[in-house]
């Protein structure tokens, strides 16, 4: 089971677990990213996620192929949501299954780290104080403030 998707609906982590689960695997690792109420000391009200969808899915496919090569994890499902997300909403979920725990945990961490550096998805944060900012992890702060 290998699948990636950029989705514009709610992500259900339990569905990803069910997708990778199999009696041949003894370990499932799931990572879930959610919209946090604070970033860089500012109170976040909501986040708009956008993507270059075709390339994002293509990069995600490459990342899970690399994870399979590195860790031998054949069951790996990734969903990333785009659109207007509220506080607490799930933005990304990654589920990996393997016979043993080590590779399942390694694969999950690898995928989220790679997503953060090379998958073309962007966050526009809206703050409680009315401001908004494109999040730019390479700068520590966004590139456009308002």
């Amino acid at each position: 089971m290998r699948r990636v998707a950029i989705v514009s609906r709610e992500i259900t982590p339990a569905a990803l677990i069910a997708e990778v689960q199999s009696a041949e695997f003894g370990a499932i690792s799931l990572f879930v990213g959610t919209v946090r109420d604070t970033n860089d000391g500012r109170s976040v009200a909501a986040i708009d996620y956008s993507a270059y969808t075709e390339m994002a899915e293509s990069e995600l496919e490459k990342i899970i192929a690399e994870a399979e090569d590195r860790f031998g994890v054949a069951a790996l499902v990734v969903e990333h949501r785009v659109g207007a997300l509220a506080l607490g909403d799930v933005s990304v979920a990654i589920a990996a299954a393997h016979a043993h725990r080590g590779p399942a945990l390694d694969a999950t961490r690898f995928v989220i780290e790679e997503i953060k550096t090379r998958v073309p998805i962007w966050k526009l944060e809206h703050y409680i104080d009315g401001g908004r900012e494109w999040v730019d992890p390479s700068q520590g702060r966004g590139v456009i403030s308002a």
Partner: protein
Amino acid sequence: MSLVTVQLFASYAESLGRPTITIPLEAGGTVRDLVENIRSLPGAYVLPESPRVAINRRFASPDQLVDSRDEVALIPPVSGG
């Protein structure tokens, strides 16, 4: 001379005011040349020294040649997850 269509996203699309731009490029022009041509547009101050460029949905090096039939995009610093 050909015209290359370039997709913009996020802060770049906002600063340049459009989701796509059409940029003239000499035959044999590279990613570096394309970026230099984009710098003359209003709002292009938002671009860092070496913005990431994707050609046909893959990250491209500055020396890579650009063809007008390529799917070209400028990729702002990513912040997914």
